[in-house]
């Protein structure tokens, strides 16, 4: 009689960069820890302001966000998002929402290329069009555009998306009224759980508009995300999904994502 079969036919810990913790309020000498892929990782800030881990893993700090590299590849190969907007006077932020859910990083990132779900889950009038879809080694770059209605107003939403492996998704969301930069960090905590952080900044447009955006945008981002969560938590992974002709992106995404489940292959892909 079989035991519980694993939910995914591959490891919960694919190779790549994962967000571990914020470092904004750390002072020299401070020590902290975070969990990545079932492993607690200690880090501290040296007197020169540089963060070091107390193990052999590679780490990188960018605008107050600390990442570690899980796996065996060269860190030069996979780039990291550069979130200058978090510290830019032209932008409001950072805003942050955190979710801890039963899912897999590959499924969450798959949603990014899955334009068809935008209609049923996020209220788009039609699936957004894809203007470009480019694979660049461990990076996947795409831009989409589609109409959505909110509060009775239909506007066009453009997205420029870069996936850095399956752990980090950087998106510029430009609608007729507001421009937002969102960074989604997916970090496996244990075999079954992913911690998702949404980091975002809103482009300033003048005091009145900024006040409205500051009030409206964070709850709306939270709401959109909360629509996806029950689906992710309850779905199964179909290794052989029945796709229709319009869904080539999903198949291409999966082929691309395979590289993060093999050891030391990022270099080969890049070469």
């Amino acid at each position, binding site marked *: *009689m079989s035991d519980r079969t694993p939910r995914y036919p591959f490891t919960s810990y694919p190779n790549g960069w994962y967000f571990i913790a914020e470092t904004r309020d750390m002072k020299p000498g401070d020590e902290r820890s975070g969990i990545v892929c079932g492993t607690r990782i200690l880090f501290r800030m040296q007197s020169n302001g540089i963060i070091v881990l107390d193990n052999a893993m590679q780490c990188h700090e960018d605008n107050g966000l600390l990442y570690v590299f899980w796996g065996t590849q060269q860190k030069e190969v996979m780039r990291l998002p550069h979130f200058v907007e978090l510290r830019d006077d032209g932008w409001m932020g950072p805003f942050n929402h955190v979710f801890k859910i039963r899912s897999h990083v590959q499924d969450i990132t798959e949603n990014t290329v*899955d334009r*068809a*779900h935008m*209609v*049923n*889950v996020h209220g788009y009038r*039609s*699936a957004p069009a894809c203007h470009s879809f480019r694979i660049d080694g461990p990076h996947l770059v795409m831009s989409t555009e589609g109409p959505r209605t909110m509060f009775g107003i239909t506007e066009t939403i453009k997205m420029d998306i870069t996936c850095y492996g399956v752990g980090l998704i950087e998106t510029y969301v430009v609608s007729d009224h507001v421009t937002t930069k969102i960074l989604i960090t997916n970090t496996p905590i244990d075999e079954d759980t992913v911690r998702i952080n949404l980091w975002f900044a809103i482009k300033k447009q003048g005091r009145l508009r900024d006040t409205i955006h500051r009030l409206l945008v964070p709850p709306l981002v939270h709401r959109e995300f909360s629509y996806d969560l*029950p*689906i992710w938590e*309850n*779905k*199964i*992974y*179909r290794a052989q*999904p*029945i*796709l*229709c*002709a*319009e869904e080539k992106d*999903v198949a291409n995404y999966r082929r691309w994502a395979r590289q993060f489940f093999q050891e030391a292959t990022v270099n080969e892909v890049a070469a």
Partner: protein
Amino acid sequence: MDYRFPMGPYPYGWYQVLLSRDIKRKEIKTVEYFNKSIVVFRGESGTVSARDAYCPHLGAHVGVGGKVVGDTIQCPFHGWRFDHDGQCVDIPYCAKIPPKAKFEMYPTQEINGAIFIYYDEQGEAPKFDLPVMPEFSDPNYSKLLHWNYEVDSHVQEMAENALDMGHFPLVHDYKEVPRIESLICEGAALHVRFLGERRLLGVRNPFDVTLDCYGLGVVFGRNITDLVTVRVIHSATPINENKLRIGVSFVYQKSKIPGLNLFLRWFLPKEVVRFVDGDRAILNHKMYREKPKLCSAERPLMVLRRWAKQFYRETGVEEAAAA
């Protein structure tokens, strides 16, 4: 918990998963049986169907956020709609529907106030049907009363228990062992009739019980006494390898004696609970003896075991027929 039976946990056959009244039009329910998530929905026309919970497209659980649209169920993820046969009939953003876009379905029968699904690990078509019992829609009978509970047991043990006349005095407080009047195996059905007597509030109350077993999951019973005639559905549905949900649903013939219906409404459920509680502790803990030491009066148990073999793939229908 280790599996403790020599036979497979899920013999094929019909199993009760819901009562009809549990699911209204345009409603979706998820039930957990056979170690699987099963989604049941009732369309606008009233038709009910049962399917594997996960969309054949990208695996979303259609019982979490899915919607009923007409006589189809719509997946919450990409909006694909599927009919009662499991077939995809609409993709909002694609004109050509892939022919393989089809749910894994469980054949469904809605009769006698309940919803039954046919479970076969190999997914083969039903080898038998369940009969309609007219009493369940007869206005001279009460509305359906229902009681259910969980037990750590096997569906065959439940069937054996019903035929095991020897346990009635000790477990259920009968004055004597009931007498088996007839025992007939007929394909997937087994019919048994037994007679006996109980004391009810100090008064002798003879009973005449007929049990019609259809497979190992469903028993339709009738109990005729001087006081009342009761029609019963006794169902045993595996939740997983070790756990069953037992359902007891019954209707009784309404009496013309003033006040008696009120008494029955109060008394019969109590009787059912008392009956069930007697078996529960024993079933939870007993082991299955493949070669039990039986006395000659217990021959019916072996008849049942031979009959039951047909519902297991390992033994096959041929072997059971030859036995």
